[in-house]
């Protein structure tokens, strides 16, 4: 049977994949192996439903229900001394199960422990904003909205933060293309000047590495310099080139190596 490849994943594909390669797992430990984490987990379990919990690379990961996120974070902050929301964002699992995974990375400075609270939401579902608990979530949730299109209920200013306000699409989705399409060259021309101006303005050049060798106005012709604005059609003008290594530097008529000083230590 052919290996399944999601059709809406437009990301770069690995150069080579062994179909029979089974990737190893990063080891997980039971929460009971750490006293502090075990006590924290008990406190969470007493009030909320926990679907999974384990320790991975020294940090506890707890899976909760999406509706409980505010409550769990409030509990962590007020009772369990997790005073900072270090980071939060989402992971796109749309191709696999039409879900987003959201993680909240919490830090307790008193206990010197880090906990990751995770939850799944359906595509199109909004999360409860935790901005009232942690001001840092103000910008994190805006970034999450910007990058994934996940809205936070109760957020005071749910606008894009990194992309322009009039941007369309959410860049970190796996379905978001890595390059613009052929119509992209006209987007801004159409929007600012209107379609009727296409002939006057021409398409936008979207290749940042593009060098036009016949355009002496806007591109330096390294090694083939000509006066600016020279019209070049096909035949390259012959340029005499010489290298210092071959005949020495022409400006220095006489160079006495013995009497010159070489500085080894720039700080002297």
């Amino acid at each position: 049977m052919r290996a399944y490849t999601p059709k809406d994943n437009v990301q770069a594909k690995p150069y080579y994949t062994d179909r029979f390669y089974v990737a190893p797992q990063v080891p997980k430990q039971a929460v009971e192996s750490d006293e502090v984490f075990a006590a924290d987990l008990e406190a969470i379990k007493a009030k909320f439903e926990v679907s999974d919990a384990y320790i991975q690379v020294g940090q506890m990961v707890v899976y909760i229900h999406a509706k409980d996120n505010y409550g769990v974070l409030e509990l962590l902050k007020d009772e369990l001394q997790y005073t900072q929301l270090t980071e939060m964002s989402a992971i796109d699992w749309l191709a696999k199960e039409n879900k987003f995974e959201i993680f909240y990375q919490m830090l307790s400075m008193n206990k010197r422990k880090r906990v990751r609270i995770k939850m799944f939401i359906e595509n199109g579902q909004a999360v409860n904003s935790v901005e009232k608990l942690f001001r840092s979530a103000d910008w994190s949730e805006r970034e999450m909205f910007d990058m994934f299109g996940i809205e936070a209920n109760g957020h005071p200013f749910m606008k894009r933060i990194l992309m322009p306000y009039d941007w369309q699409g959410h860049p970190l989705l796996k379905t978001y293309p890595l390059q613009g399409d052929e119509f992209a060259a006209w987007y801004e021309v159409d929007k600012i000047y209107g379609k009727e101006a296409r002939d006057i303005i021409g398409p936008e050049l979207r290749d940042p590495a593009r060098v036009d060798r016949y355009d002496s106005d806007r591109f330096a012709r390294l090694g083939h310099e000509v006066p600016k604005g020279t019209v070049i059609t096909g035949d390259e003008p012959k340029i005499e080139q010489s290298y210092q290594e071959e005949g020495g530097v022409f400006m220095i008529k006489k160079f006495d190596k013995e009497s010159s000083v070489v500085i080894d230590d720039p700080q002297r």
Partner: protein
Amino acid sequence: MAQIKNRLTPFFENISFDREDNELILNFGPQHPSAHGQLRLMLHLQQEQITKAHPDIGYLHRGMEKMAENMIYNEFMPTTDRMDYIASSSNNYGFALAVEKLVGLEVPRRAKVIRMMLLEINRIMSHLFWLATTALDIGAMTVFLFAFREREYLMDIIEGYCGARLTHSAIRIGGVPLDIQDSFLLQLKTFLDKLPQNIKDYEDLLDTNRIWLMRMEEVGHISKELSLSWGCTGPMLRASGTAWDIRKEEPYELYDEVEFSVPFSDKGDNFARYRVYMQEMRESAKILYQTIDMYWACVKNNQTELMAHAPKYISAPKLDIMTQNYSLMQHFVLVTQGMRPPVGEVYVATESPKGELGFYINSQGGPYPYRLKLRAPSFWHTGILTDLLPGHYIPDVVSIIGTTNIVFGEVDR
């Protein structure tokens, strides 16, 4: 060409400026010399006093997280240089450490010592840059010239090591690519011996300077609660009364073997942050002296390895690649296909000069990370301006932005 009406309807440009309550909306930036990058602040003003501040970022957004998802792990290393480009080795290190934790690599001791040297040199470079630019914003030209002179020495040392002055890429996943050059320790020691006098010079110029004190003291006060709530880290957090340094609390590399103290202050104003930065430079110098001894101990004990030995993930040393067939094959596979870490996720925080630099990596066993989240400290240090600026006056904005030490390569990623 006929003028055709502009059809763009941007979000903020159509705010009505004629308001009845005399409120003025001032655009501070995005091109402003004291913003240290592309920061646009929309300030609501009553006379000269700010009533509301709205930082607007994203002018330097390059989509690094998206780039990371479409690159092999080693390929992403030079991109991390472009985050906090004032101290790029610390970004390299944060990423390398995250992948090492994910894979479970043990880095050789000599590489660890060299990494610590690079990290602390970067910290001093970054703090010197901070001091220079902030002092310049406030008008102290001399300090700017002094601090840049010293920073130049450090950049020369780094240039001698890796060939680059700003974008180092000096750290690899699994170790460091090169041993330090012969003149490295001598140059470093020369610099460190001079540093206390240099710092004293800056402090002589600033500590009793009336203008400096008026712009710094009791300005930009961040309370402990606010700094915790906004996720502040690094000097921003320590100047507000929380003595939290990841090097001390969750030691990585060999930071548990070196002696240094964590300067902090309860004041929370600009001046407190200035004091913390100055003191941190002294502590970094202390660490660097100890790493020099640690390096000589490595030389003495003949610990010459610089890269971890893990054939599945790390290429063999160059000598092996050139002489042994299997090492060459492995190297070829690792370069063309990239390493495939195990399935799992990791969040690793390191203490960069600006604060907590975290890398969250979710690996699904492929050669590209499935999701990589960069936790850059400056992002929240910019966000806090929303709550910090109201109540201050326009000149204070400059000194507050200065002491938050934000770098936009990191904010926008």
